[in-house]
């Protein structure tokens, strides 16, 4: 693995104290939402309305409190199977956190079990590959 010292400090060399300082200085969050597949279009619409345009979406399987589904193949029953879910990842500056979470909630909520969850975590650093920009400038 090669990295350019002039672009970054070398993420693997940082001490815990440096990392915390970085987080404070950069004020960024990573939002991961697990939602129902058929709500994705609504979530996207709400995010555009909230001016959040950079998202990554992947298809995942999972089940939480909801018991999943029963499938039967030639009489062989499979219960509690994993359901298809969509995982949405959004990296944002702290200022955008509330509107992002609100937008996801508005788009994903049906009131039924299985609507999903939103996880928010501190984001240590962000690099834009093309320009080498870092932090808050790179994220938007």
């Amino acid at each position, binding site marked *: 693995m090669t990295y350019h010292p002039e672009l970054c400090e070398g993420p693997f060399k940082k001490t815990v104290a440096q990392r915390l300082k970085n987080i404070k200085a950069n004020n960024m969050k990573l939002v991961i939402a697990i939602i129902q597949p058929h709500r994705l279009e609504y979530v996207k619409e709400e995010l555009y309305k909230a001016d959040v345009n950079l998202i990554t979406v992947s298809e995942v399987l999972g089940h939480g409190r909801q018991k999943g589904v029963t499938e039967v193949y030639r009489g062989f029953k499979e219960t509690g199977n994993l359901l*298809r879910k969509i995982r949405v990842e959004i990296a944002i500056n702290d200022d955008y956190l509330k509107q992002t979470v609100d937008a996801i909630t508005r788009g994903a909520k049906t009131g039924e079990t299985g609507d999903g969850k939103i996880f928010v975590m501190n984001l240590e650093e962000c690099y834009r590959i093309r320009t080498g920009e870092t932090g808050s400038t790179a994220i938007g």
Partner: protein
Amino acid sequence: MVVTVLVLMFAAAATFADESPVVIEAIAPAVTPTPATIDTGDTAWVLISAALVMLMTPGLAFFYGGLVRRKNYLNILMQCFIILAVMSIQWVLFGYSLSFAPNTSSIGGFIGSLDWIGLKNVGPAPFSAYSATIPHQAFMIFQGMFAVITPALIIGAFAERMKFSAFLVFVILWATLVYDPLAHWVWGIGGFLRDLGALDFAGGTVVHVNAGIAALVTAIVLGKRRAYNSHPTPPHSLPFSVLGAALLWFGWFGFNAGSALSANGLAASAFVVTNVAAAAAALTWAFIDWKVNGAPTMLGTISGAVAGLVAITPAAGFVSVIPAIIIGIVVSLICFSAVSFVKIKLGYDDSLDAFGIHGIGGIWGAIATGLFASTAVNSAGNNGLFYGNAKLLGIQLAAVGITIAYSLIMSFVLIKIVDKIMGVRVSAKDEAMGLDLTQHNERAYTMLE
């Protein structure tokens, strides 16, 4: 291997046709039946044609199935496949009798008698009023495959939202009370549209207009899919749709050329114009797409091919090649407008354009038959408007009008009755989860392994 066999069979069929002096007409057999002797070439061709038409229903399943979201894929395949099973039984038990058994009573013009229930009196000997040179059972099973695919065509309209149980009940009722009478009117002895002189070589009105109108009605009664207004639902697998369209095109040779009920020049002529119309329509749709949407699309091209096949169906045994090309070009122009502009303007959710292609294309085909039919192609047919006989166009329009009216009213009544009894739509939750899991406890694709 299979291809070689088919080629040999066509060659054999052609030889038999040359030797046979008897000309068999498809739609209006001679009033005095020709002596009933089985012709082996004719029989082979009609049996193969029945198998070709059978293949159209699974073909349609793939054509439609590729166009839905993958959570509803098995549901489409299952609806088509179960229709193959249900209608095969319905047909031999009473469907064939209601459609084709001669009926001397006062309602004889409207519905067949019960004389052939359970295929009583339908045996290996030819029934010469329908087909003098093939076993009666060969004619019966060939017609049976038409009865299978017609209700299957409607599936495209209510895809992704209909309850499977309600679907089964609706199909049986619709086939018995809408398809069987219509088949009798147009093809059955004493059927009133047949006596009127309407030309429908392979089922333009009975199959396509009829199913297309039922599609429009069911799409409106069931209402839009819940996500319809907010976002588009892209096809989950266009390659499957292409496979399905190819199988449809292949099977359609049995549908149209088989409707000659004889391995003769008329069958060859119907075969050729069928191919030509499909090709012209596919090309036309591709070019319209290119012009209007900026690129020729795969979905557009196969939609065009199917529209062309629909349009040539009633005309296949009555028109020559150049009119077939015109029929193909015009059907794509009309159907493209119907599915791209009219549907959006009117706001109904005909999920897979069963009405837009089969209904509209079928109506155009029936009208085109009234324009381009020529006795030079088929002496048992009639001349159309462009061959000096304006009267035929009037008859064709009347036949289409009557078909539309009957199918519209009956389909509406039947779907409403089924809705009252058991409800036709799945719940919002089931619709969101997909019909594969909620109606069949299966899924088409796994994500892991």
